[in-house]
């Protein structure tokens, strides 16, 4: 099977997965006590007629399965409806948050790789040396530091004390120098743990490869050490790292709630938390769908990278 056909097959498999995920969240959320009417009227008494008309407006009077099917039918034509809480268009609401989330998640991911991969290589090659020990300590600290703490400390030092960066996002478009400067701290906060994780993973996976017979052969036939490490060992050692970083890409995009809160970043995480608090079903559903899509895409990307890294893997 060619890679192209493989991708197509995977995407078609993803559709039932996404249906399953959204159906599950739909039923879980409806199983919780409380509904959007409570959030809307704030536990004041409304006349039964008013309540009924609000319910009918957002199809909340229908059985759950019918609400779900209605939702699916609309999503198929990319119609995400209107939020009963804010009265705003859901696609527009999510669409406004998505770029900010992608930018921060993507930057943190790149940072994790940019730090994690070289450090991991050096640590493995200089096993037991000071560089290895140092990276071990740094990685331990990076993984053990809760990101809300790191974020607040960074803000305190660089935002409040030194005044090098703003504490809240500047009044500037996302793709601007001022915004890029502001994003430094949240990126570091979000990316640090991932970077530490990549370092440790790559180091152990490299160590396993360094003992392999092909490495001895490569060295015996007189290849330069640099070539041995980067072309042979690294390539093989990257497979598990790719698996993990692929999933982390999805995680960084979906799981930045705490960092978004500290840095007042207008991302998806905060939107989802607010929507869950207010039982804003259409927004929760759109968010969950988006998370599902991002994980499916990340996995797909991982599989493609596998095939590139290891010629034996063909789909």
């Amino acid at each position: 099977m060619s890679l192209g056909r493989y991708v197509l097959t995977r995407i078609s498999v993803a559709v039932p997965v996404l249906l399953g995920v959204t159906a599950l969240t739909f039923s879980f959320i409806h199983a919780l006590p409380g509904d959007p009417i409570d959030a809307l009227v704030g536990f004041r008494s409304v006349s039964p007629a008013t309540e009924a008309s609000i319910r009918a407006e957002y199809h909340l009077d229908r059985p759950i399965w019918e609400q779900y099917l209605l939702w699916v039918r609309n999503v198929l034509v990319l119609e995400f409806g209107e939020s009963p809480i804010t009265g705003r268009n859901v696609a527009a609401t999510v669409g406004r948050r998505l770029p900010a989330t992608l930018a921060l998640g993507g930057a943190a991911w790149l940072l994790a790789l940019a730090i994690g991969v070289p450090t991991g290589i050096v640590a493995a090659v200089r096993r037991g040396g000071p560089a290895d020990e140092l990276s071990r300590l740094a990685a331990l600290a990076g993984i053990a530091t809760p990101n809300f703490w790191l974020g607040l400390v960074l803000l305190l030092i660089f935002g409040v004390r030194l005044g090098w960066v703003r504490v809240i996002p500047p009044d500037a478009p996302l793709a601007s120098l001022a915004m890029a400067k502001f994003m430094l701290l949240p990126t570091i906060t979000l990316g640090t743990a991932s970077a530490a994780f990549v370092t440790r993973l790559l180091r152990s996976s490299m160590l396993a490869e360094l003992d392999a017979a092909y490495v001895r052969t490569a060295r015996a036939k007189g290849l330069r050490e640099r070539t041995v490490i980067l072309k042979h060992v690294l390539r093989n050692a990257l497979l598990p790292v790719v698996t993990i970083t692929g999933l982390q890409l999805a995680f960084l995009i979906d799981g930045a709630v705490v960092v978004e809160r500290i840095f007042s970043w207008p991302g998806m995480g905060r939107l989802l938390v607010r929507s869950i608090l207010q039982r804003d079903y259409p927004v929760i559903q759109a968010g969950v769908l988006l998370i599902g899509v991002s994980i499916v895409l990340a996995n797909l990307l991982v599989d493609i990278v596998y095939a590139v890294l290891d010629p034996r893997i063909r789909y």
Partner: protein
Amino acid sequence: MPGNSVGSRERRPIRRRSLLTSVGLVGISGFAGCIRSNSVEADGPAEELIQQGFAATDTDPPFETTIVVTEGTERSRVATLLKSELEDTGFFEISIEEYKWTTHLDLLTTAADENKNALFIVSWTGGWDPDDYVNMLFHSDSHPPNGLNVNQYADETVDEYIETGLEETVFDERVEIYRQLQERLVADAPVSFVRFGEVTHVWDADAVSGWQAYPLETGAYNAVYAPWADTFTKLEGSTELVGDLGSDISTTDPASMNDTASSQATQLVYEGLTGIDFDGTVQPVLADEWKRLDTTRYRFSLREGVQFHNGEELTAAHIKCSFERYEGEPREADVFDWYGDSEIVDDYTIDIDCRREYGPFERRLFDVPIVPMAAIDGDLDLESTPIGTGPYRFVDYQAGNDCRLERFDEYWFEGSETVPATAPVETVRLEVITEPASRQGALEAGNIDVSYGVPSASLADLTADDAYGVDRHVGGGFDMLIYPLYREPFSSAAVRRGCNMLLPRERIVEEVYNGVGQPAYTPISPLLEAYADEEFQERIADEYVRSP
């Protein structure tokens, strides 16, 4: 004495012991099969009350229960203090459960139906009328989902006080009713009142002058420019004031608006017939005067030459339609709880008929913004484009980011000796900053000029620092401990009153809230001075709460 507080006077064997030995003994008594385990000494008036209640409900100490609080808030520390006080009596064994805010709310509203063995610590915020502090919490019609009387308290006398208080229009009479109501509530103790909260505003003293803390959170930005309340703010070296909002705005339509941030962001955009100034006095805003025609009918004369931001000119028809558009909307009770009908006398005169004699009438008008005809005809969607008659126009709102307002140059106010006709602040930007530590950070870094939500632990430092202005005022919020009335032994008022006496209120205010707020013994905030002045609070505290 109300309720079932006086039970049998049966004396129990007396022996005080620590929790640990009591647990040990329960085990032993289990084996022995004949020794009763309810041998806890009552060594104070509170303990005696609890003991009476335990006897009346046939409960053996220690009674195991749970205190439920929201996760990661000061309330979990309140719960810890409370746990140790209650366990010290030997009558209780308490665990603490923390939940996310929504889960907490769900547990709370279903607690009575599920017969949950738990005490809840929650906050409630009232407004400028005493009814706000009692109706939703204690009237028997307010059991969830119609209100937040979550432990399903029902007392005919309380209901009667609430209803007559609502329909009483003579001020002194109202005060008397609400005082009696409060005394009854404290005596019966369906909940314990713990602490009154404060609003705390902090601003950059080099950039901002004239700022005042509005006592209610929703009105925080009245301080920018509210000529009807004799208030305005000046800026040094800038024409833009940057403030903060604690969460995203959910909607800007007053008929469905239900959260603090949305009210704050639209405070300068909308206006009602009346306003309530920083001292709680009703002031004319869009109405320049009014009189009562009979018990339920009022005649309002409107200010002439008032323009909406879309160019419409205010007439009596706007008033009528603005009230009536609430019908069928989520917040219809705000208006239709009292609104009967209105009659347009001429363009600038309107008669409003209440469905009943209604005590809070003038104050309620403050909460009903007058909107333009375009919104009533459906040409304008207030959910995204709020338009009113206020001193600032809404420019835009970037979801999750900030909200911008711009001075409205056609504003009706013509200037007075104390307030200029033109607001000195040209634009207002409200940044959404959810994390309190980041709000303080943003203020200290100069990214915002004023914040109403810095952590209470930092207030002392900021107050001592000349670079910041700090204004603190008792607000409409209070914390309370809700008892599971529907379960023994808390069905006994004696047990509840005993617990009420044990609450370490001073320690809670000092240790948990760093001195922000004040101990509460009654529900109505001292913000409404007449209903809850210090003398009254002290008398209630001495009579029902403090141990002699």
